């Protein structure tokens, strides 16, 4: 795991802690909607928390397909490196 991936993942978990404190430690490949019990509005709140922490704007399309912390992390790392 690269340093960026590790730090992005820890930021995502911190942000998740704001929305669902008890879900901070869920597996990276766990479905956020089902296992962290996040509805669509809460997923959007989570993205906002992440954006504030990383000082980054995450396009809705980038996040639309992300179901897990790992997928969110991969999308954000790609965005930070400027790749499509």
């Amino acid at each position, binding site marked *: 795991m690269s340093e960026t991936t590790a730090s992005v993942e820890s930021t995502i978990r911190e942000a998740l802690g704001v929305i669902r404190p008890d879900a901070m430690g869920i597996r990276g490949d766990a479905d956020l909607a089902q296992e962290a019990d996040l509805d*669509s*509005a809460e997923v*959007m709140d989570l993205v906002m928390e992440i954006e504030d922490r990383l*000082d*980054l*704007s*995450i*396009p*809705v*399309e980038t996040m639309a397909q992300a179901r897990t912390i790992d997928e969110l992390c991969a999308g954000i790392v790609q965005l930070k490196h400027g790749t499509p």
Partner: protein
Amino acid sequence: MSLLDKFSVQRGLAASLAENSRVAPIATPMDDVHSATSATINGRRVILAGTNNYLGLTYDADCRAAAIAAIESLGTGTTGSRMASGNYAGHRALEHSLASAFGWPAAIVFSTGYQANLGTLSALAGEGDTLLVDADSHASIHDGCRLSHATTIRFRHNDPENLDRRLERLGEAASRTLVVVESLYSTLGDRAPLREIVEIKKRHGAWLLVDEAHSFGVFGPRGLGLCEDQDLLGEVDFIVGTFSKSLGGVGGFCLGRHAEVEFMRMVSRPYIFTASPPPPVIAATHQALRKVLQGHDLRARLSRHAERVYGELNKLGFRLGTTTPGPVAAVVFDSRDDALALWQSLLDAGIYTNLMIPPATPSGLSLVRISLSAAQSDEDIAQIIAALAAHARRARPPLAA
């Protein structure tokens, strides 16, 4: 998992709502409707305080007469798109009146308010452009963003500083960015800080679209909305609105300070690939627009009702979606059961309101949305307040925040 398994959540929600209430609180069946402010629900006459009939024009004698006359002369429907056989003189005249009212070069009428946002956003923004939308925007705005294929970024609700930061990050791409906000958010009844948003979009060279769905007819010297009210019509680029609230019909519109709005007709799929509004709807809406432009008395009456209801709700210790009185008063709860209890208690007292629960609400809140109308009488308002007070007495101490 099979095709229909995805509905298990909705099945559970519908069952739990049905268990806890005698009348369905979502999609409440109206047995009959008698006026702008009265209906029969579950065999009982109620005061309507859960519509968007802010000026009460649905039963206005002149609007009804205009609709009837249009049916008699033009028939019940157009059966065609504006691009084909549905481009009637009445449709063009309504667009002309809307544009004239704003003093702007172009207006386009859509068949629904939902389509107005879908059709406007998808025509204005495309691949390579950015849509920067308030996170609490109506579904039609979010869906319009998806249809546009533009890059969509959400900013924190009513947070100019967050918007500013995002525009800063976009740099030169701000010139290809459309900021999208609503002037009055219909769930909590709160208003956008329009003046600050205008200042920010100007500083970054971006564009601004304001959805005045719930403020058109209600605010401004001629009822054109909160942009007119705050003297910002010279600064805002585009305004979207609906016919189905203050104007009492169905349909929507987009207006712009820029002449290019006219060309949106040629690329806007929700405008092109749907039938144009029926002649009676256009005729009644046009009549309603005349009433709105001269509707000082209606607005004054609505504003008086809003001040009174907000004042009483505050006194009773209810938590509200916003402190600024307006046509929507949202009583907010953390628990769905508390919201449902108030909704049911008001219905038992003969008052219909709206129950709203997550995920259709911001911040996981549950709320009872009370909407006001110029057509409500002072006695109607007194009855609404009495029912709220009776519930507050029964529900204490939890309500005494």
